[in-house]
C-alpha cells in the first residue's frame, strides 16, 4: 500500500511540475532583465540570475503606456458583457424551459437550435460581418460596441447552458412558491435564480473567459481607445526584440481577474449538490 502510495505521489508530483512550469517560467521572467533572457535559459532566481523589479516599475510607472486603460477596458468589457449575457440569456432560457412557443412550424427546440447555431460559424466570419455593421453604426473602437459584440457572442452559450439548468428545477417548486403567495418576478428572484445559481455562475464564468481571452474581436473592431489587454501584449511583442519581461508581467496581471472570478464563483457552483434534494 505504502509503496503504491509513493509511486502515485511521485507521478503526481512530476505532473504538477510539468503543468506548472509555464506559470513558473512566466513568473520568473517577469523579474528578469534583458541579459538574463537573451543570454541562455536561466532557471533559478538568486542562483542563476539576480531578480529585479524593473519590468514592474516600467509597467506601473511611465513606461507602461496606457496599460491601465487597456486593463480597465478588459475588465469592464468582460464583466459587463458577461453580466448582460447571463441576465438576458437567463430570461430567454427560462422562457424556453417553462413556456411552449410556436412560431409557424417552429417550437422551443428549434428556437434553441437557432440560437446556438449562431456559434457554429467560425468567429472570423461573424467578425467580418460585425465590422461592416460597426462601421456603418459608428461603433468601431467604442466601449459600447465591444460590450455589445461580446454579449452577442456569449448569449447563445448562456441560453443553451441555462435552459438545461432551469429545466432541472421541478416546476412544482415554482408552483409551491406561487401558492405560498409570491408573484412571478418574486418567484424568479427568490426561488428560480437561487436554485439555478450554479448554472448562472458557470455561464458567467465561461462568458467572462471568452471575453477576457478574446483577441480577434478586439483586433478587428478597435484601434485605440477600446483596445483590450491581449492587444496591448501584442504591441509589446511587435518590436524588433520582444520585451519578454514586460510581456510576462502583463501576463501575470492578466491571470488575476479570471482567477478571482473563478474562486468567487466556484462556491456557487458547489451548490450543485442541492439539486439532489429537490425530488
Amino acid at each position: 500500500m505504502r509503496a503504491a502510495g509513493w509511486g502515485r505521489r511521485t507521478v503526481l508530483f512530476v505532473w504538477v511540475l510539468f503543468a506548472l512550469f509555464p506559470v513558473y517560467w512566466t513568473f520568473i521572467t517577469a523579474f528578469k532583465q534583458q541579459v538574463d533572457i537573451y543570454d541562455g535559459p536561466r532557471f533559478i532566481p538568486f542562483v542563476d540570475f539576480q531578480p529585479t523589479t524593473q519590468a514592474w516599475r516600467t509597467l506601473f510607472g511611465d513606461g507602461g503606456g496606457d496599460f491601465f486603460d487597456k486593463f480597465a477596458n478588459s475588465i469592464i468589457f468582460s464583466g459587463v458583457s458577461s453580466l448582460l449575457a447571463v441576465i438576458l440569456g437567463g430570461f430567454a432560457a427560462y422562457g424556453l424551459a417553462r413556456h411552449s412557443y410556436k412560431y409557424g412550424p417552429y417550437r422551443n427546440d428549434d428556437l434553441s437550435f437557432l440560437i446556438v447555431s449562431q456559434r457554429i460559424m467560425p468567429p472570423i466570419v461573424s467578425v467580418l460581418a460585425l465590422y461592416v455593421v460597426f462601421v456603418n453604426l459608428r461603433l468601431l473602437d467604442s466601449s459600447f460596441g465591444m460590450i455589445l459584440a461580446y454579449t452577442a457572442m456569449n448569449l447563445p452559450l448562456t441560453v443553451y447552458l441555462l435552459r438545461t439548468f432551469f429545466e432541472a428545477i421541478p416546476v412544482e417548486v415554482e408552483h409551491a412558491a406561487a401558492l405560498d403567495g409570491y408573484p412571478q418576478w418574486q418567484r424568479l428572484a427568490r426561488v428560480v435564480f437561487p436554485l439555478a445559481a450554479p448554472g448562472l455562475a458557470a455561464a458567467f464564468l465561461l462568458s467572462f473567459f471568452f471575453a477576457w481571452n478574446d483577441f480577434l474581436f478586439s483586433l478587428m473592431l478597435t484601434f485605440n481607445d477600446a483596445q483590450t489587454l491581449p492587444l496591448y501584449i501584442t504591441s509589446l511583442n511587435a518590436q524588433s526584440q520582444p520585451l519578454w519581461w514586460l510581456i510576462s508581467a502583463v501576463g501575470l496581471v492578466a491571470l488575476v481577474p479570471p482567477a478571482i472570478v473563478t474562486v468567487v464563483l466556484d462556491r456557487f457552483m458547489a451548490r450543485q449538490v442541492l439539486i439532489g434534494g429537490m425530488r
Partner: protein
Amino acid sequence: METLTVTGVTKTFGGPRPAVDELSFTLGGGEFGVVVGPSGAGKTTLLNMIAGLVPPDTGEITLDGASLAGTAPERRDIAMVFENYALYPHLSVRRNLEFPLRAPVRRGTLSRSQITDRVTQVAETLRIPHLLDRLPSQLSGGQRQRVSLGRALVRRPRLLLLDEPITHLDAKLRHEMRTELKRIQRELGVTTLYATPDQSDALALADLVVVLDAGRAWQVGTAADVYERPANVTVARTLGDPRINLLPGRRDAAGVTVLGQRVDADHGPAGPVTVGVRPGDVELSTEPLAGAAAGRVLLAQTLGYQDVVYVDVEGATVRATVPAGIVARPGDPAWVRLPAARLHVFEAASGQALRHREVV
C-alpha cells in the same frame, strides 16, 4: 370553513381525450374530500386547476361562493402539498416553513415573533422541531413529507390540497402519517381535498369520495356509499382490496345465473349482467357444497392477516379471502358459492348498477 364547488370543469391537453372531463362536485366547508383514481386519471390536473396553476378550458370553480376564475394562484390562499414535496432545496426547514408567511401578499400581517411562534407551533404538531436547521436534502422521505405538510398548514389556508402525499412512504410510516393527517385536519377544520391512487386512503379518510377514472367522476359520495353502493363497475373495481370479483352472468325472471349456478337474486328483465362479489363474501370450501360451483385452486397468497385464494371456475378466476393458515394448494379441487344477498349486479353493457349487496 370554505365550501369548494367544481362545476362542469374540463381540461384537454391536446390528447385524444380530456385529462379532466365535465367534472362536478361540492365539498362542504371543513370536510375531507378524497379524489381516488389510477395513474393518469386526472387527479393532479384537477388539483392544479383548483390551485390556479392550470387554467380549465370550461367550467367553474368557486371557493366560499366566489368564483376563482381570474384570481392568480398567489392570491387564492390555497395551499398544496405536491407529489414530490417540492420543498425549496436552498432553504433550511425553518426557512421553508417561514416562506409562505413572508410572502408579499401577507406583508405586514404578521410580526417577526408571530412568524417564529407559528413555525414553532406547526413544527411541534408535526414532530419536526429537531429538523428545523437542516436542508431538505438532509431529510428522509417521511420527514420531507412532514415539512411539506407543515409549509401548507403554517399559514392556515382556506383550502388544503394534497397530491399523493403518502404514497411513497413505507407501510409503517404511511399508516402513521395517514392517521396523523386525519387528526390534524379534524383539529384545524380546514377544507381539504386529497388525491390518491390508494383506495384504502379514500375509505379511511374521506367525508366525500370522488372516484375519478379517465378524467370522469364515476361516483361522488361518502366512503360507505362508494364501497357499499358502487354506482357502476368502475367504482366497484376501484374500491376494495383485494379487488372485487366481476363475473359474467345472465339475468332473467327467475333470478341471476353466474358460474353456472342459479342464485336467487334480482329478478328482472332478461339480459347479460356483470356480477360483482367481494372476495370476503365468497364462500370457499374444499368439499362439495350445495349450490356451489366446482373449480380448482390456481394460487394461494397470504396477506398475513388473511389469505387470498384464486380459484379457476370454468375459465373464470374467482378471488376469495379466507382466514390465514387454511392451506390451499394449486391444483386442489375447490367449491365456490356466491351468497345471493351479497351480490352486486351491474348491467353488462353500460356497467350501471342494478342492485347492491345487502348490508349486514
